[in-house]
């Protein structure tokens, strides 16, 4: 047994060292664009092309960073028409490390006026799917990542990409931009979606009157960790349920197994970096479908509070003006019409120079 475990440990150790070495390879922008241009994440290619070749769009501009909620929800064309120089650099999927990455790249070559981050409903977890493409292992660790399962997952994915990158360079490949020029040369970053949510889905998620189970779940911490249907349960059952939920939260709210707090570190680092470069930053809350509604019979908030909120959050008191199926792409995303309405509402906040 000893000999077996020793040999197995050696091989596992060599594999880890090997993956770590591979994960230290940083990739060229050309490779990143090659990997993303034909995918759901083509906005990454657009962002990099804009940072590298269209500095004029970024200088003295208000830059929006965040997930697909930003990508589809902020109409930067409308903002520019309203006299606010702005650019939407949101990319699909959650992960504050991507916000941090793009901000660092922007600040290296440009001087934006302000950077606005997306405020999530609850803190994100895990890592963004594209993190292995953008970060090396040491860069990620330097920015606050701790060693846990998310990191190990990153290591393996990064190693795979590094091997692919060697092959890419070996074959002397260059990204073929044919057919993508018009997309890459766009002056605005919003990806317009004209789709409308299915009627059944719309009514399933809209939080009118009694709210929804999903919304209640988000706000459970404000309601003594109990759903309103559980208020009449016996005392012991309520205590057990509360205990289970609090414990689960306590176990999950650390970085030992998976990223929870690390995600907050990334966004705090982004805010600090911006501050160092004397670039203003704040956050914006963009609604999802369950935010549309009123008269809830439980305590609720649009988002969970965080110390970073002190930098300022653009949010509206009510999102009921979006209570129409025509404004939603799906339960989490505004479509083009919805984003126009929402963007119009935030213009006064963006014009307020005191912010």
């Amino acid at each position, binding site marked *: *047994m000893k*000999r*077996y475990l020793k*040999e*197995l440990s050696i*091989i596992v150790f*060599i*594999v880890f060292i*090997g*993956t770590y070495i591979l994960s230290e390879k940083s990739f060229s922008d050309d490779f990143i664009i090659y990997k993303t241009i034909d995918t759901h994440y083509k906005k990454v290619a657009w962002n990099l092309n804009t940072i590298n070749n269209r500095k004029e769009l970024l200088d003295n501009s208000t830059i929006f960073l965040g997930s697909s909620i930003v990508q589809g929800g902020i109409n930067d064309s409308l903002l520019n028409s309203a006299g606010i120089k702005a650019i939407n650099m949101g990319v699909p999927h959650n992960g504050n490390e991507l916000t941090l990455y793009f901000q660092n790249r922007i600040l290296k070559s440009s001087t934006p006026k302000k950077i606005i981050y997306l405020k999530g409903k609850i803190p994100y977890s895990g890592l963004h799917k594209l993190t292995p493409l953008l970060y090396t292992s040491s860069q990620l660790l330097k920015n606050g990542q701790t060693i846990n*399962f998310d990191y*190990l*997952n990153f290591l*393996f*994915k990064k*190693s*795979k990409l590094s*091997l*692919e990158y060697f*092959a890419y360079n070996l074959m002397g490949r260059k990204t073929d931009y044919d057919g993508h020029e018009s997309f890459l040369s766009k002056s605005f970053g919003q990806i317009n979606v004209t789709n409308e949510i299915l009627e059944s889905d719309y009514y399933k998620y809209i939080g009118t009157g009694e709210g929804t189970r999903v919304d209640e779940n988000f706000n459970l911490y404000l309601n003594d960790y109990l759903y309103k249907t559980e208020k009449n349960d016996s005392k012991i059952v309520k205590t057990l349920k509360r205990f289970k939920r609090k414990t689960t939260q306590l176990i999950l709210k650390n970085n030992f197994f998976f990223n929870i707090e690390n995600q907050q570190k990334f966004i705090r680092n982004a805010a600090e970096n911006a501050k160092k470069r004397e670039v203003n930053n704040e956050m914006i809350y963009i609604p999802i479908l369950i935010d549309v509604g009123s008269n809830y019979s439980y305590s609720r908030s649009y988002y969970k509070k965080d110390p970073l909120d002190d930098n300022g959050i653009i949010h509206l008191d009510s999102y009921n003006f979006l209570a129409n199926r025509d404004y939603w792409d799906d339960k989490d995303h505004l479509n083009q019409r919805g984003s126009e309405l929402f963007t119009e509402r935030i213009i006064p906040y963006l014009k307020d120079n005191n912010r």
Partner: protein
Amino acid sequence: MIFNSFDFAIFLPIVFFLYWFVTKNNLKLQNLLIVAASYVFYGWWDYRFLSLIAFSSIVDYSIGIALNNTEKKSSRKILLITSLCTNLGLLGFFKYYNFFVSNFESAFSFFGYKFEGYTLDIILPVGISFYTFQTLSYTIDVYRKNLNPTKDFIAFSAFVSFFPQLVAGPIERASNLLPQFFKKRNFNYNFAVDGTRQILWGLFKKVVIADQCAIYVNTIFDNSEHYGGVVLILGALLFAFQIYGDFSGYSDIAIGISKLFGFNLMQNFAFPYFSRDIAEFWRRWHISLSTWFRDYLYIPLGGSRGSLGKKIRNTFIIFLVSGFWHGANWTFIVWGGLNALYFLPLLLTKKNRHNLDTVAENRLLPTPKELLQLLTTFSITLIAWIFFRAENIGHAFSYLKNIFSSNSSMNFEMEYSIFILLLFFLVIEWLGRTKLYAIASVEQTLKSKSIRWVFYLVLCFTIIGYMDNQQDFIYFQF
């Protein structure tokens, strides 16, 4: 939980540690740990269906004991029928109910009658076809008095739910696996190293070969109407490698893991694509199922003895049932039927047991005749695989029709690295074709330990490199 997942990478070392360090000297505790681990393994996917495994275990355990307590023929028959009805009933309900209802509806409407059956929204419990067949083998063997029933319920539960082979086989015979739960298991270095090597090769087959082929296979089969003959043949060819890599990869991992715990499972694949005729192919493909059907269905029906009509009947029964076992779809039945048609000429000319050895044994390369035989056998299995992979019969026929269409363009983009991988894979498999798995004899081939380790590391990094296109094992759906 699937073998090529992160969850399993954590689960396995924990169970291994508890098994060899905590429950080490206590056989009962080791068996209990196997049951607990197996239930966690299965429950990870859907805990509700654990009740089915538990139910199946209780029923067959009790019937085994009852069979031992009676010599009366009629009572023994009733007990056997009870087991058959319970196990096949569960399988029939979860797997075939909707198929039969919808086919009855179609049949009635064909004759002008209206029949409205109620189809149900049923989830197919993972691995149900595997563990029901395993428990059935126990009851049948006890009924036939080939095996003494066990009175140890924990050991029996461990036999039914043994996690390495619970969801996709090999379908173990009670006579082989069950006695191993009563023997003291000692850690054996060579056995464990062999198991680890087999796991590594299984992972390579699954992650690098099957999952990479799957990317192209899915695109080609899902859009078959847009492609010409060359691309469609390529799709079928890649599917042949996908299904082999997927299923034999799973078997290798299962057998390898079992070795880590001191168990020896039966070989499930013996390099089937190196077969010189279809009979040899079926002796080498999914051996645990083929032999199950041979022992519990084909031979009781009379096998290859009796009149010509009986031989033909038995051949068709076994292949059609084998096809139907794979799923409630006519495509599988046609796949089984096609294989019966391939097999029949060999049976009738008594050539079905011609190629019992390994091709080109003691030689590096096959003779031209052998090569031709290998290619012919592989080609006819490709046609059958099209039915196996197609969504429905119509899709399979249109796929075949399009192969011969005038559209011969190669309008399909793919990475050439897949061909390099396939070539590497084929060479290794060819070199190791006389062994239990392709790299079993690597210690004899690569004498230097450092070269051997470099080989293992190359495999490890290739697996890591292709890890992110994770696909479920195809045979989970059966």
